[in-house]
């Protein structure tokens, strides 16, 4: 993060909304009307069926993100807006990848899948469909490894994120971060 916040970066914003007709179009409309870029958006019910949670990944500098959160909050159906980016939280995304599976590549694909804890959920004579979840770094690493073999199609859910708990219980000491694949090319496995 740059010192003055002027550099654009990705933010993960968690939004609680009334589960009402048209609420998704209000949120999506806000982003298009104000020219903000949504990288991903996912929606689902919460424990309370009258409330949905949207997880939005948006990129911008601090100025833009401040406006995004204020504008989201201004929507009448929005109950709560939480920028998780700098709080302790866990993020995951589910991805389905259909990859070419010629006989000479099958073993390699399965090995790679195993390392990434991806499952093979469909098989044809010429393709596999792999399923995996993880954070962005892991998913990107898997895609990069499969790319030379020939990916036919990738379908991603978009990121979802959950905070690690009430703020008062979050340990203040910064925990050592596991290097991500993109950070460290030697790391090939994940502990999750």
């Amino acid at each position: 993060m740059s010192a003055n916040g002027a550099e654009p970066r990705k933010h993960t914003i968690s939004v609680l909304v009334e589960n009402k007709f048209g609420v998704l179009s209000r949120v999506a409309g806000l982003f298009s009307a104000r020219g903000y870029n949504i990288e991903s958006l996912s929606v689902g019910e919460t424990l309370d069926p009258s409330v949905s949670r949207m997880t939005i990944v948006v990129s911008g500098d601090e100025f833009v993100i401040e406006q995004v959160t204020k504008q989201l909050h201004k929507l009448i159906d929005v109950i709560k807006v939480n920028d998780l980016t700098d709080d302790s939280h866990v993020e995951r995304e589910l991805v389905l990848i259909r990859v070419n599976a010629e006989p000479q590549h099958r073993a390699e694909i399965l090995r790679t899948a195993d390392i990434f804890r991806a499952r093979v959920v469909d098989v044809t004579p010429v393709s596999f469909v792999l399923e995996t979840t993880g954070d962005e770094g892991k998913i990107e690493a898997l895609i990069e490894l499969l790319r030379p073999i020939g990916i036919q199609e990738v379908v991603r859910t978009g990121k979802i994120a959950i905070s690690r708990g009430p703020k008062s219980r979050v340990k203040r000491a910064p925990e050592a971060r596991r290097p991500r694949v993109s950070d460290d090319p030697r790391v090939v496995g994940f502990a999750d």
Partner: protein
Amino acid sequence: MLECLKREGVDIIFGLPGGAVLPIYDALYDFEGLRHILVRQEAAAGHAAEGYARATGKVGVCLVTSGPACTNLVTALQDAMMDSIPIVAFTGQVPTHLIGNDAFQEADNVGITRSATKHNFLVKDGKDLGPIIREAFHIAVTGRPGPVHVDLPKDILVKEAELIWPEKVVMRSYNPNYDGHPGQIKRAAKAMLRAKRPVLYVGGGVISSNANVELRELAELTQIPVTTTLMGMGAFPSEHPLSLEMLGMHGTYYANFAVHNSDVLVAVGARFDDRVTGRVDAFAPGAEIIHIDIDPSSISKNLKVDVPIVGDCRRVLRGLIDAVKQEKEEAGALEARRAWHAQIAEWKKAQPLRYEWSDDVIKPQYVIQEISNLTRGNAMIVTGVGQHQMWAAQYYKFTQPRAWFTSGGLGTMGYGLPTAMGVQAAHPGKQVINIDGDGSFQMNSQEMATCFAEHLPVKTVIINNAGHGMVRQWQRIIYKERYCAIDLPQIPDWVKLAEAYGCVGLRVTKPAEVVPAIEKMLSTPAPVILDVIVDKDECVFPMVPAGGANTDMILAPPSRETREKAEKSQTGF
């Protein structure tokens, strides 16, 4: 539904019927206690509701049918959105089982109005009607006011349903904050007292929160000069010694210079619009900025603010008055403040608003001055959009809030006449004057019929410069006099048009005729069009070319040098 409106305190509806809302009109037939004003085009219903809302502070209501009626209404909704005006608009919709089938006169009403409203509703069940109407009115007037749209499928209007009427509106997702943070108020009070060159920059929020009394008390207590935005005119008397009048693109020299040189700028219910700031990095460059606004997203949107206070103007100003009274004035500040007033007086003397007098052709500014004199600043003034609008803001001497109606944010030509109808309907006994342009007036002149039929004696003064004057001014100053698509030949004959609508038409062409004609207009009980043929070469000055700094303002018809300077700036309406 009509019962709901009545419970919300509605007394007037502006509307135009059609198939999808006929059940409501059928109920209106013998419903007591609601006046319906039949307009001639749906946008006019929306603007009239805006006029009613701005005049009274209550929610304005309009009712139109589905499809084309709703699309006609959109301009008025967006206008109310930009200017934060509380209206509730009802539209008809095809029956629920036909929605999405491209049925007759179907349009995706809520889809279309979504970005032009503060909130909108599609009623899908008759039992929701009461609660939705209640929420719609609540949302429209609370927090930052704005338009709310309710779409009513025809089957909902026909089916019997139990009326559910919640006593209180409780919404977990919408709870505007009215009280400013006490710590921030204290910080602001200290900064105001410490300031050597402070200015209060006051906008439409002071009008909508009825905070003019508090504003005046604070200004007089602290001796801080006050400038108002186009939307804030009337929040502070134009002729008060502390008044700097309007700032911004067509603001006064002294307002713009005072703001530019200020060390503390207190923005009250104003939103740092680009027509006010000019080039943002050159706006009040040395000032500590305090910003009072009920909408958190207004704060630090265009310009970084040092002391944000989220809250209602009226309450926060009251808090500031108390805080200022408790704090002690800093010793040096008072002395410096005297020098500041002297400096401002000098600017006022050197660069007052001015124009060149002529004995032969009527100067538009002169017409406004005489309207101001003859009404003693007490009339309700409505405008179209263009040069005449700016001259009205500059030369009318405002004495009170809720007496100035203009389309600021959207700049909607055609706003004048229908809005004036709404104002007149709200205040039947008051003098309502629509100062309009010949271009703007034509965009809704059909409403003369409504004025006649509904006994709304609106007075329209057309500042007739035979063209789109404001566009002409830009083409003259910024586009090297390459005039294109601005001429409006003197058609129609406005006097005859007035008569065709059963109203009174007057025309003047010489300066000496202006006063008698205005007097005659004011004493006529019917709607009047006064056609004033003015000097078409007149420009609005001062003028800050869009994208320029406010101190780069042009004060007189352009020399070659200013023209070159202007060319370099960005342009746009």
